């Protein structure tokens, strides 16, 4: 799992928070787990393994959007 530098981590977290505030974030299922938007943000803030996955996913979204613009 990639660990981000603090600047990037802040940016990714902020993007998640913004989408959650706008009501554009939804709970995610993994086989055996469920995370609400609030839990995703909380895990990312705490820097847990799951939180790292959520930041990694957010970065993936940035890259995917950039590729299509």
């Amino acid at each position, binding site marked *: 799992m990639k660990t981000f530098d603090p600047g990037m981590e802040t940016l990714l977290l902020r993007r998640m928070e913004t989408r959650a505030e706008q009501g554009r974030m*939804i709970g995610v299922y993994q086989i055996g787990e469920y995370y609400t938007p609030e839990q995703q943000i909380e895990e990312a803030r705490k820097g847990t393994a799951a939180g790292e996955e959520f930041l990694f996913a957010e970065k993936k979204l940035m890259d995917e959007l950039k590729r299509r613009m």
Partner: protein
Amino acid sequence: MPDTSKMMFVRPKNCRFCGNGYHGLNHVLQYAKTKGWNTIDIAAEQATKQPIYNAIDQQDPASFYGFGHGNDCIYTGDSELSIFTCNECDRLSGRIIYLLSCLTANGLGPAIMQKGALAYAGFVVSWTWLSASGTDGDPYADIYARGFWESANELWIALIDGVEFREAVSASIAKYNEWIDYWFYDNPQDPYSQECIKWLAVDRDGLLSLDACDIISDETTCLQEGCYWYDNICHSMPPKPPGGGGAIALALIPIIIIVGIAYIVGQKRH
């Protein structure tokens, strides 16, 4: 030798958030039946170690598509108890394996290959999906879940259609991309379109496939086994030819030579 006409499906139902998988894999199971495959369906309460081991021992299927909870070194079933682990996966030897499960590509997948499987596909990430209708029903009926399950299933659909394993993996990746395009171009106004794009991309890039060549670490054995050695790694496919203009230029060289010779011969005759 495993029976190449037989295809085994494992579809737990009662583990946490497993209902979607139980119904999702049913689409592939039914497709396999319509295509004339001899299917073995180990579903719901039966999707535990002993019934699965018995079915493998008695029916010897050449291919195995299993859904369930997973971690680096474990794949579990309906009761969330282990079915295969890094130390207990010998029964998968000689078969083609696809585990729609979290993280098994980090440990169990390579272990399965070392035990002699022909090919394996699974995920280096926690396979993640969205659903607006919970996880008990058919994910194909859910606007958000459908893309995830269709994309994951596409690998096995392609195998049923008779394509080679690597191409089947590519077909699955193409399906993830098709759904990402749908959320980006066709339905960007949906409030959760970006969430769909995000997790489809994570799942797509987290799909790892291994075949016998991938686990060889020295050049001599690699070449002896009919694999290809380049970039200091053993591959099952030859290196890609130079792309774009380079490839076109290479293709044109023989034509230019022939035309040149024809011109010179023509000049001499005159």
